[in-house]
């Protein structure tokens, strides 16, 4: 069990407060910059512009530097960093459906990624951009965000169980 800086009793109360504050800080910067991951890839392909894509690459580098420095200071909170060397190359950080084979995780990552790329580019932005545009008054983006919420329930209640049984059958 990983141990963070806050003891468990404090952390369970801090979770909504900290994530609300962090979200608000991030939201301010995404609104000012037009930050978008799918948009960054699109701009590089279509316009040969790297402005947005540098944002996504900075996210990866920022996370890596943050994890490196903080895991040095408090290793107990980052016990599996660097994941690929600690846990294995073909095992994902938990988040996708649990208990599948390596092949199934690769398939889910690649097919899920393709679906995210297609829907993101056709609707003019990835989810963070859609949430930001909702706050700028865009009602189409609001429909996207509401659709995401419905999608979460549909996925959890039905789709994830179907996908798991399908993948366990074939891979």
């Amino acid at each position, binding site marked *: 069990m990983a141990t963070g800086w806050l003891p468990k009793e404090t952390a369970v109360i801090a979770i*909504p407060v900290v994530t609300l504050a962090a979200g608000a800080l991030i939201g301010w910067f995404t609104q*000012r*910059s037009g930050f978008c991951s799918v948009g*960054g*890839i699109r701009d590089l392909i279509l316009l040969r512009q790297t402005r947005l894509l540098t944002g996504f690459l900075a*996210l990866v580098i920022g996370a890596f530097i943050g994890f490196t420095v903080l895991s040095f200071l408090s290793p107990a909170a*980052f016990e599996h960093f660097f994941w690929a060397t600690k846990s294995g190359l073909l095992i994902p950080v938990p988040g996708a459906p649990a208990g599948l084979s390596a092949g199934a995780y690769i398939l889910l990552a690649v097919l*899920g*990624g393709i679906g995210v790329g297609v829907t993101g580019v056709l609707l003019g932005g990835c989810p963070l951009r859609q949430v930001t545009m909702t706050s700028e008054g865009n*009602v189409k983006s609001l429909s996207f965000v509401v659709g995401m919420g419905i999608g979460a329930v549909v996925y959890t209640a039905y789709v994830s169980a179907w996908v798991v049984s399908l993948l366990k059958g074939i891979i």
Partner: protein
Amino acid sequence: MAGTFSGMPEPADAGGERPSRFDRYARIPLVAGLLIGGVAAIIQGLLISAGGPEAYGFCVACHTRDLVNAGVNAAAGTKLAIAALSQNAVLPVLTVVGVLVGAYSAARAHGEFRKKPGSLSSYLWYGSGGLLFMNFALFMGGCPYRIGIRIGYGDFIALLGFMGIVAGVFIGLRLAVARAEKEG
């Protein structure tokens, strides 16, 4: 070409008034990216005692899932799964509410809030797109941002997910071009 994608970010220097020094930095996507990555690492350090998963400090898809499912569970008495971090907390992660508040404040402060309604069919198109998007994102265990954070955490499968996203953007652009040509 670019006109076929409505709602795209406008150039950052579109505003009229002279930006403050803070705002000049805030308008650089690279700054936002470093901030999100760094904040995600700090949040893990702060909150991981309450439960996993790791590399979960910021995610638009999974954190929306946690919030919506927790709300449905409370209202309808269902037991939809959410991340341990949100399950153990007094309230689930409120990241997405925070982003809405922060982005709204920034838009108001800079006079960039305008109500932009669409047609009913556009709402259905965007709503079903959001529904599909959420499912694809949860297949790979996160939105593009959590994928980025997981890559930073050393997750090779997340890197494959990112390559999938790049391929998906290629396919999506092909589809958009084909549709635009068909419509003339």
